[in-house]
């Protein structure tokens, strides 16, 4: 037949992310940014309480690194606990809503309305409910923050299935469980990860802001707050750097999990063929 097409070799080229060469521009921007910061602060004699030099922050970070690490881990555990709780509930509720639409009809308006509430305002209340020193008070804030983006994105993924996909499964007389397992859930994965990635950042915000309203001395948010109150702004900045590093690593880990589980997604096609 005239229709034979040769298979193209699979996985040609780059499989896992960028090569070192692709990172050069990003690294250059980082270096220039830090350099400009250092240069401007030095040139204009900016007061340290306004903006410390990057080198000073680096020094502070290095000398306090073991304390920062344990404080960071303490706060990160709160964030992670809240993340697991909020995201888990979000996915569960999305599955329930998708499986039983009347439920979604009854509860969605309230979920949307609740999302419009600045949840962080509840931080002092949570501290009051669960106790200032109880990590669960911070987990609760992080969990509430994570819940909505994960739930709404997962739900969208579960329900935005092409009508023909549903007809196809109907033509095979497939049951509801099959429909979820074979179509709706795989279809939801990329959407769900969008929510899960947003939630990593939100969980760190929830934990740290929760700590600003009071928490144990071994927490990173409390450290940043105390350093600021005593005028040790360079130390506070070092704390912020630790918080940022943890947030970035958290995000990167979830992004990697996304890569690994949804490598089939067309958005990943650049990693298959170049």
């Amino acid at each position, binding site marked *: 037949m005239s229709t034979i097409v040769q*298979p193209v070799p699979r996985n040609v080229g780059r499989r896992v992310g960028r090569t070192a060469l692709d990172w050069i521009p990003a690294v250059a921007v980082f270096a220039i940014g830090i350099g400009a910061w250092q240069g401007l602060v030095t040139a204009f004699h900016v007061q340290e309480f306004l903006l410390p030099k990057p080198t000073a922050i680096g020094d502070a970070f290095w000398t306090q690194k073991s304390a920062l690490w344990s404080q960071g881990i303490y706060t990160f555990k709160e964030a992670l606990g809240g993340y697991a709780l909020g995201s888990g509930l979000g996915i569960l509720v999305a599955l329930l809503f998708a499986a039983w639409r009347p439920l979604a009809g009854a509860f969605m308006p309230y979920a949307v309305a609740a999302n419009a509430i600045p949840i962080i305002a509840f931080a002092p209340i949570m501290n009051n409910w669960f106790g200032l020193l109880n990590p669960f008070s911070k987990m609760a804030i992080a969990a509430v923050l994570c819940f909505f983006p994960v739930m709404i994105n997962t739900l969208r993924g579960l329900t935005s299935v092409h009508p023909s996909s549903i007809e196809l499964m109907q033509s095979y007389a497939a049951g509801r469980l099959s429909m979820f397992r074979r179509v709706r859930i795989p279809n939801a994965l990329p959407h769900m990860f969008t929510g899960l990635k947003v939630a990593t950042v939100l969980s760190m915000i929830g934990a740290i802001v929760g700590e600003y309203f009071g928490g144990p001395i071994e927490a990173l948010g409390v450290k940043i707050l105390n350093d600021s109150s005593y005028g040790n702004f360079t130390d506070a900045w070092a704390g912020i750097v630790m918080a940022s590093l943890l947030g970035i690593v958290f995000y990167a880990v979830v992004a990697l999990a996304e890569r690994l589980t949804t490598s089939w997604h067309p958005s990943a096609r650049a990693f298959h063929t170049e």
Partner: protein
Amino acid sequence: MKAVSLKGVSKQFNAGVTALDGIDLDVEPGEFVSLIGPSGCGKSTLLRIIGDLTKPTAGTVQVNGKPAERARRDHEYGIVFQDAVLYDWRTVAKNISLPLELLRWNRGRRNARVKEMMELVELTGFESHHPWQLSGGMQQRVSIARALSFSPTLLLMDEPFGALDEMTRERLNTELLRIWQETSSTVVFVTHSIAEAVFLSTRVVVMSARPGRVAGVVDVDLPQPRTSTTREEPRFFELVTQVREGLAAAGAPLGETQEPALVEDLQ
């Protein structure tokens, strides 16, 4: 026993639009029947009624002597849509074996059948590709392989090549005829291309629009097997003219069989 038997099938949509009105049609086993008509004549709706994906408002539908719903539950037919409807998260091989999984075939049997189907649609070597790595024509071949994987006796096709370019379409037409003969299945094929309908079919059912009715039937007596030279035979052109006149008599504006779909989109 008829492969498909429609008696007095009517379909009204909620908006009060009559999509189909009193359709009577029998399809014999082994036939290749095309439904052709202007957009809005309900030909896709009729195909979905045969497949029990839409219920008729009136009339009876039987597939292989069974009521449509029973036939669907018994996997009597495979269906191919205009979009290939392949799942991105599955490889080509896994897309083809989807219905086999649902039928609880064991892995060995599934793999053997997938291999057979890959050969049938000439895609061997692409097993582990993902759908979006294939061209539109190749995707549609995967879709056909999937529809035939569990050896249904009836193949329902809803404008399967409508989105493809002319050359790919003609090539796949020839392939489809080969597959039809190799698998000795019955095909009900929806199209709005007159040439495609005549080239493929043993019988062309011409439909009129609003409400959708059977306006006429053209028996295609072109010899089998049909090849690319079939399209150059005088008899081919006579039949094309016959179908075109049938469409004109049914009230389809000539040269305008692709007007925007109204009724079919309502569902």
